[in-house]
């Protein structure tokens, strides 16, 4: 098992250093969030930070905005532009960011 983990590790390093693999291309739509939702912890903002948040929580919020059960100023309008599959990919990517 240990050997297996090491092998995976090497494969990952090799893959991430390959120029054929663009390192971290976000799924469609995901990169736009940080226009309002700060990627870093500075500056302080009333708009919640999304990087590192639980993907399920992000998904719940977005589907709530989309069906109107969760009131908001602007997110109700934005969430309607995304399918479940798109939202799942975006939520997973945001959760994986540090």
């Amino acid at each position, binding site marked *: 098992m240990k050997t297996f983990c090491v092998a995976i590790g090497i494969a990952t390093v090799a893959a991430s250093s*390959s120029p054929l693999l*663009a390192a971290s291309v976000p799924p469609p739509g995901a990169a736009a969030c940080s*226009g309002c939702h*700060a990627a870093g912890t500075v500056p302080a903002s*009333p708009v919640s930070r999304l990087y590192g948040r639980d993907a399920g929580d992000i998904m719940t919020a977005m589907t709530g905005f989309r069906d109107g059960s969760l009131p908001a100023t602007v997110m109700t309008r934005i969430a309607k*532009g995304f399918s479940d599959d798109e939202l799942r990919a975006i939520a997973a990517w945001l959760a994986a960011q540090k």
Partner: protein
Amino acid sequence: MGINHRMSRREFVGGGAAAVTALTLPLPAFAQAAARVVVIGGGFGGASCARALKQVDPKLQVTLVEPNRTFTACPFSNNVIAGLRSLEEQQFGYDKIAAGGVTVVAQAATAIDANARTVGLADGTSLAYDRLVLSPGVDLRFEALPGYDETAAAKMPHAWKAGEQTLLLRKQLEAMDDGGLVVIAAPANPFRCPPGPYERACLIAHYLKTKKPRSKLIILDAKDTFSKQRLFQNAWKELYPGMIEWVSLSQGGKVNSVDPATNTLITDFGNHTAQVANVIPPQRAGRIATIAGATDNTGWCAIDPVTFESKSAPNIHVIGDACIAGSMPKSAFSANSQAKACASAVATLIAGRAPEAPKLINTCYSLAAPGYGFSVAGVYQPKNGLFTDVEGAGGVSPADVPRDFRAREADYANSWFATITAEVFG
């Protein structure tokens, strides 16, 4: 990294040949030299793109070409005009971008050879690139408005590029007598920041109401409709009753010429002599886009919405105000959103793969007064060669909401500016 791919013209001949050779070879995964991406323009589009390129693929050699050492942001510059904010709060430098591994070259780009893939700089040196990103913003089309030119702009400021012009308009308002007439001339579409002239009218009216309440403001418009129109018009009635008059195109609002000697704006229906005249002229893509062969007969840049690659200049990508982005407005948010998608597309193309169709977002806040904000938002995807609205999404803030809703949107507007400028420059 340094400036190892900046060369004199003489050195360039050899370097360029080597680069071409490298590109024509098959792509061995581990032997390829780092690809070179040059980004021209250090505003919300270009600076975002340079940073995003390094994030998506840290091995890329990214150079940002921008002659100004300090960037002065247009969003929130209407607050500066109204005396609610200092110009310094609008200003940002490039040190942090350079610290992140982007080579920042403080030169103007003056020539582009799309075949040789080189950018000529004002100091006579050249940069070679594998892919070029243009984010040149807008140029003002002085020739499109008889009587208006750079000299006239010193008397009748446009204040459509933030900086000295912003302060000039503010000083003119401060010097104006109570009871004076302010005129804003708004251009036809498309132009940078569609809600901008109307937010400006609000915030100037806020200043006048506070300091010079007998004054009046007229907007002479070359359009019959405008962005967030109902929200603005409701706010004018609610906050500034009797102070703002909007003259639409069909009511004779189009300014045909100006006379800076008398501060007069001339329309088909008559002349308006203003104490303060803010003339926002028609615009086009920044000149370097035309030099690159990336503009069409509209003066803007047609692009493939999946890759942002110019439809007329291969290996040159155009983002921000300069590109024709379908239903996406020319805004800082759009430029930032496009910049990040473009960075992904460029890195993917360099890796020899086909980029996925992007999905983009825009959100533009406007302030009708301090603590009174509203927004327009949209979600966009490529369709028939342009960015189109995703149906059912987007739109403007609701018309009938309590003031608390407007106060929250004003808060979000302020935090948006802090967040996006931190992402781009911080």
